[in-house]
């Protein structure tokens, strides 16, 4: 059970991998995305995104700013203008 997750910036495709859960800083509050999430789209606030490779693992933190997240059949796609690790 895994969620396909992609992080894309204008310059390149930063991540494309299968993960357990991703926590995204949405403009109206952070939300976590697991596999099988309903189709959803939200703009994101500047903040930290947490990627959980497996359940219970320590999250990997990536700061993102300016962009939006889209959850569809293909998984979660985050389009961010600036990404810092």
């Amino acid at each position, binding site marked *: 059970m895994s969620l396909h997750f992609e992080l894309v910036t204008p310059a390149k495709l930063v991540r494309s991998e299968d993960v357990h859960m991703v926590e995204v800083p949405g403009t109206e509050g952070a939300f976590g995305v697991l596999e099988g999430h309903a*189709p*959803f789209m*939200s703009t994101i606030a500047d903040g930290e995104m947490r990627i959980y490779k497996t359940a219970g693992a320590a999250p990997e933190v990536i700061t993102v700013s300016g962009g939006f997240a889209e959850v*569809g*059949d293909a998984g979660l796609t985050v389009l961010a*203008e600036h990404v810092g690790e």
Partner: protein
Amino acid sequence: MASLKELKGRINSVKSTQKITKAKQMVAAAKLRKAQAAAEAARPYAERLSGVMASLASKVGKDDNAPKLLSGTGSDQRHLLVVANSDKGLAGAFNSNIVKAALVKAKALLAEGKEVEFYLIGRKGRPVIRRTYPDKIGVNFDTTSVREPGFNEAEQIADELVGMYEDGRFDVAHLFFSQFKSALAQIPTEQQIIPVKAPEGAVESDAVVEYEPGEEEILEALLPRYLKTQIFKALLENNASEQGASMTAMDNATRNAGDLIGKLTIQYNRTRQAAITTELIEIIAGAEAL
């Protein structure tokens, strides 16, 4: 008839020119590979963004209260021509082709009685446009301080354009840049960037997508980003085109210089031989006279 010394000087000067063109050609070839890779890397973002744009615009775009960036100001009287050029020459007809396309468009618009203003990116287009339309150059975006225009520049340009648009300084913006086909072919292209033309081909899905905050808010946030991406893409294409054009032009120049050196060398050798023959004739004639 040029003297031996003169010929030698000319051969040497052509040789040093050839060295320069050859070096520039190799630099351009290396940079072209990099520019192509950059253009390649930017594709996923642009594709996903236009996918989202298409599906959102098809839902919201028909409404009367659609964002101004999408629906336009309702008039098309004042046009802004955004011309993207490079800062360096030695790229064949690369810059002049873009400028030519922009000037043709400007002429057509003026003939229709519209107002035209230029927004220049890069240094090379300015002198030519200033000669034709000295009073129509509005802004000149300076890219000389950075090595290659990147997303930061695209962001600044887009922000400035949106600001000007919201101030009501123009109704329609066209972007002129060179599309990269191959190292041999670069196509000067005109693209309308404001009002934003929504990409076609929205994927219809039955799934009910939930939007946060709302469809319209997202679209509003999306439009400037889409504009940035368009400009960024144009800058990347332009960069690849510039390197391609430069490579081709410098390859030709190197070959021409080689031909010229060959011709001059033949002439040099003939002249030298003629001088030796004359000397010999003089000696033999002198000896016979004794």
